[in-house]
C-alpha cells in the first residue's frame, strides 16, 4: 500500500496544476464548445490513458485520476469532455472499426468533434432497455425515428452516440444497436429542455427519418446493449474522483461562507462542518481505492456505484446546510443574495444528483444484487 504519489505522478500533478492555474480562468466561461478540449489537447492532456496507437499517452489509470482531481479542483469547464473523451472515445477504442477509429478518435481528442449521449427516452429512463427509437434498414444503412430526452450538451454537439432498436418487435436488451449520428443530418431537431434551476444545458432530440450510413454503426448490429454498458462503465470509472473533487471545492466554499457570516464559533455549525468533512474524506479515499482496483482489473466494478450514491447524498446535505447558514436571507436569489445565489442554485441543482447518471434507487439495487449478492427484486 502507498498513499502518496510516486515521484512521476507528483511531477505530473505539479505540471498539470501549474498549467491549469494559468489556463482555466481564461476558459471558465468557455466560448465555443470544444474550446477547452482544444487547449488541453495542445498541452498534451487529452487521451492520457488511451493507447499511443490511437493518439493517447498510454498512461496508467492513476494519471486519469490525477487529471480528474486536479481539473475539478481548478474548476475547469469539463462538462462536454466527460462524454467525448471520457465515454464515447474509449468505447470507440474498444469496439470501433479501424476506419471509425481513424475517423473519430483524433477529432475527439483535439476537440473538433463534440459528442452527446442519446440513451434516455421519455419511457426509458431507469429502464434503459425499454428504448423505442427505431432504426429501419435501408440500402445504404439505417433510417432513424424517435425521441431522446435529457441529453446533456446536445445543443452544442456535432455527434451523438445513440441507442436505437434495430430489430423490429424485439424487446428489452436484445435487438438494440449503437449508432454514431451526425447532429447535422436532415431530420435531427434539438429542443432545449430547461432544468428546474432555470439552466438550460440538457435537451430533447427529435429524430425523424434521419439517415445513418452503415459505417456509423458502432459494434455489431444487435449488440447495442453491451456497447452502451461499456460506455456507462467508462463514465463511472474516474467520474467518482471528479465528483469528489468538485465536492471538495464546494466544501472549501462552505468554509468561506461560515467565516464570512461569522459563524465559525457556533458549536452546531462546527459539528456539521466536521461531519461533512468526514463524509468527504470517506469519498475521497474510497475513490483512490476504486482507482487502484481499476488499475489492476482494467474495468470499474459495481463498487464504483457507491461513490456516485454517497456523493449525491453528501452534496445534497452540504447544499442544504449552506443555505440554512444564510438565515432569513436564504429566500433571496440573484444579485442581492450571498455569493450571488450560489447556495440557492446548488440547493435546487443538487436534487438532480440522485437522478442523473442512474438514480439512487437503481444504484442501491446494483449494490444489493451485484455486490452483496442479495436475491434479485425483478
Amino acid at each position, binding site marked *: 500500500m502507498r498513499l502518496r504519489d510516486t515521484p512521476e505522478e507528483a511531477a505530473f500533478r505539479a505540471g498539470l496544476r501549474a498549467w491549469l492555474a494559468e489556463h482555466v480562468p481564461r476558459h471558465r466561461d468557455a466560448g465555443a464548445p470544444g474550446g477547452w478540449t482544444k487547449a488541453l489537447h495542445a498541452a498534451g492532456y487529452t487521451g492520457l490513458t488511451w493507447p499511443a496507437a490511437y493518439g493517447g499517452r498510454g498512461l496508467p489509470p492513476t494519471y486519469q485520476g490525477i487529471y480528474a482531481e486536479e481539473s475539478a479542483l481548478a474548476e475547469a469547464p469539463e462538462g462536454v469532455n466527460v462524454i467525448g473523451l471520457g465515454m464515447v472515445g474509449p468505447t470507440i477504442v474498444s469496439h470501433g472499426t479501424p476506419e471509425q477509429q481513424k475517423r473519430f478518435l483524433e477529432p475527439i481528442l483535439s476537440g473538433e468533434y463534440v459528442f452527446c449521449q442519446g440513451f434516455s427516452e421519455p419511457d426509458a429512463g*431507469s429502464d434503459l432497455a425499454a428504448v423505442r427509437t427505431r432504426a429501419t434498414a435501408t440500402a445504404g444503412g439505417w433510417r432513424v425515428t424517435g425521441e431522446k430526452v435529457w441529453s446533456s450538451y446536445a445543443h452544442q454537439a456535432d455527434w451523438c452516440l445513440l441507442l436505437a432498436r434495430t430489430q423490429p418487435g424485439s424487446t428489452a436488451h436484445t435487438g438494440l444497436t449503437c449508432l454514431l449520428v451526425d447532429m447535422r443530418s436532415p431530420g435531427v431537431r434539438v429542443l432545449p429542455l430547461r432544468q428546474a434551476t432555470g439552466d438550460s444545458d440538457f435537451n430533447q432530440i427529435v429524430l425523424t427519418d434521419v439517415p445513418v450510413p452503415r459505417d456509423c454503426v458502432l459494434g455489431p448490429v444487435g449488440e447495442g446493449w453491451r456497447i452502451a454498458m461499456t460506455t456507462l462503465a467508462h463514465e463511472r470509472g474516474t467520474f467518482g474522483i471528479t465528483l469528489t473533487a468538485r465536492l471538495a471545492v464546494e466544501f472549501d466554499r462552505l468554509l468561506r461562507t461560515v467565516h464570512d457570516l461569522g459563524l465559525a464559533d457556533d458549536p452546531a455549525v462546527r459539528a456539521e462542518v466536521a461531519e461533512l468533512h468526514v463524509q468527504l474524506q470517506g469519498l475521497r479515499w474510497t475513490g483512490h481505492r476504486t482507482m487502484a482496483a481499476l488499475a489492476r482489473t482494467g474495468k470499474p466494478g459495481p463498487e464504483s456505484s457507491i461513490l456516485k450514491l454517497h456523493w449525491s447524498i453528501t452534496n445534497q446535505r452540504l447544499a442544504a446546510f449552506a443555505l440554512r447558514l444564510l438565515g*432569513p436571507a436564504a429566500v*433571496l436569489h440573484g444579485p442581492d443574495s450571498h455569493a450571488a445565489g450560489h447556495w440557492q442554485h446548488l440547493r435546487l441543482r443538487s436534487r438532480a444528483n440522485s437522478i442523473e447518471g442512474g438514480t439512487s434507487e437503481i444504484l442501491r439495487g446494483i449494490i444489493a444484487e451485484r455486490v452483496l449478492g442479495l436475491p434479485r427484486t425483478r
Partner: protein
Amino acid sequence: MDFALTDEERDLSAAAARLLADRYPVERVAALADADGVDPDTWPHLRRQGWCDPDLGMVEKGLLAQEGGYALAATPWWSTVGLAHPIHRAAGRELTPDPLTVAWQDDPAGGGCHAVRQGGRWRLTGLRALVTDATSATALVVAAGTDAGLALFAVASPADGLTVEPQPTLDRLRGAARLRFADTPGELLVAPDSAGRILAQARRHAGTLLACEAVGVARRALELARRHAGDRVQFGRPIGAYQAVAHRLADSYVTLELATSLALRACWLAGADDTEPAEVAHAHAEAVVAGRQAAVRACEDALQVTGGLGATWEYPLHWWYRRALWLDSFDTPTGGHLATLADHLLAGRPEPARPTA
C-alpha cells in the same frame, strides 16, 4: 377532547379549495411564477368568500392557509391577514380588506429604519428588506426605531419618499422587496412601550399560519408524487410497486400527518382563551419545525420519485419546492425554535421519579 374538524370547518376548507382550484390550475401557477408572481385578479374573489372576514377563527384561518399552500395561491392574503391584521387590531383599527404587509426585517447587508417627529408629524428614514407582497400592498406597517425604542407606523403605499425595490427571490410567487424610506410620512400605530410585544405576537400569528401553509405544500407535493408513482411504468410495472418508491412516499405521508396535527393544535391554542402563554409559544415552535420538515421533505421525496421529469422547469413541482425552501428559512430560523423548546425542556433539573410507596 374531540380533535376533529367541525362540519362548518370542513365546508369552509372545501369551498376554499374549490375556489383556488378554479383560479390556479397548475399552468396558471407556472405562468404567474414566470411573469412577476403577482395575481391582482383573485383578491376580490377571496374577499367575497370571506377570507378577510375579521371574525374568522384561528383554526379557520389555518385551514385557508393550508389550501393556499396546496394551490400555491399568488395572493397577498397571508401578509394581510397573517401579519398586518393582528397589528391593526391591537392598534384599535378597523380591519379593512385591503392588501397590507409588515416591514420589520433589516437588510442582510445592514441598515435599519428610524422615525423622527417633526412638527407633530412622524417621518421615516432608512431601509427595510425581505418585505413580502410589498408590490401589492396599498398600505404598510413599518417597524422603525425612535428615541424611545422600536415603534410601529402606518405608511401608505405609494407614498412620498417611499421606494419599493423588488428583490429577486427563490420563490417567485412570494416576492420580497427592499423598501427605502426618505422622510416618508407615517402615522404612529403602536407606541414603543408595547410595539415589541405586538410585533412578536403578529409574527407568531403569521408563523402559525405558515406552518399550516407548509402542510398544504407537503400535501400537494405528495399528491403529485403519488399520482406519478401510480402512472409511471418502468421495468414493466408502475414504479409505485417498487418498495424503494412506496416506502419513501409512506414515510413522507407520516411526516405530513404529524405536521398536520401540530399545525391544527397550534391554531386551536392560539385562538383559545384558557391557555398559558408558554403553551401557545411552544405549540407554535413545534408546529413550525414539523411543518417546515414536512414541506421540504415531501417536495424532495416527490422530486426523487418524479426522476428526470421532476428535474425540468416545465414540471411544476419545483414551484412548491421553492415555496418549501422559503418556508424553511423565513423569519426565525429552525434553530431558534428548537432553542426555545430546549430552554423550556431543560430549565431546572427534573425531580427524580419517586417510587410509589
